[in-house]
């Protein structure tokens, strides 16, 4: 798994690539924590290069969404969610907790 951050004026975009499972989720969590700990609570997660995510990754997303939503208009949104990962998120009942966008720039523009 690899994760990169790009800062925009109103939000940060985290691009996550590869596979997020119990082995790599701590690294994914750390990247998310680094953003919220820097005082930024508007996050777009670009999943276009994501091949796989287990519930360990879902938990990291949920924990970060909780932190972000405590702050004024803070939120985690998802962009370009691959079909299989979308199906798993739906099964987990997560599609109601995260807005999803077809491209990262629209997601950035939503903030």
């Amino acid at each position, binding site marked *: 798994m690899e994760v990169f951050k790009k800062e925009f004026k109103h939000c940060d975009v985290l691009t996550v690539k590869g596979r997020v499972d119990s082995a790599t989720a701590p690294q994914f969590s750390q990247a998310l924590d680094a953003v919220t700990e820097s005082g930024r609570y508007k996050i777009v997660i670009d999943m276009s290069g994501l091949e796989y995510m287990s*519930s360990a990754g879902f938990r990291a997303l949920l924990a970060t969404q909780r932190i972000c939503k405590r702050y004024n208009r803070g939120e985690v949104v998802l962009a370009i969610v691959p079909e299989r990962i979308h199906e*798993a998120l739906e099964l987990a009942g997560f599609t109601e907790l995260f807005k999803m966008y077809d491209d990262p720039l629209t997601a950035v523009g939503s903030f």
Partner: protein
Amino acid sequence: MKTVKFSADFQFLDEIREFVGQFAGENGFSEKEVYSIQLAADEAASNIIEHAYVEVKNGELEISCGMEGDILTIVLRDHGKSFNPDSVRPPNLKAGLSERQIGGLGIYLMRKLMDDVKYESTANGDNLLTLTKRRG
């Protein structure tokens, strides 16, 4: 049955997914089904590594895959602490963000992705988690 022994460590989840995914693919499961099977096996294995082997280093996780007719069976065998997934309450998927449970999600997904999940502890101290799924 095709059987592989893995060290009970999260770093081998990649290989576990590869093993069950290849077996399912070779036996005619669709790409979508293969993803579901890999996710279910990952959740099952992660759970064993996290709970059954919580205080154990060098634990062993044996995974067997078999096909009978159009039914795939995956058996995960460990020698750790018995941990019955039936004892975990399913998460409330209608709960709002703040009430949403963090735990129990992996087991819930595993059950939804497979047709049947069975757990048993044998007399000699092994725990067997059996997952089955019908093709098509």
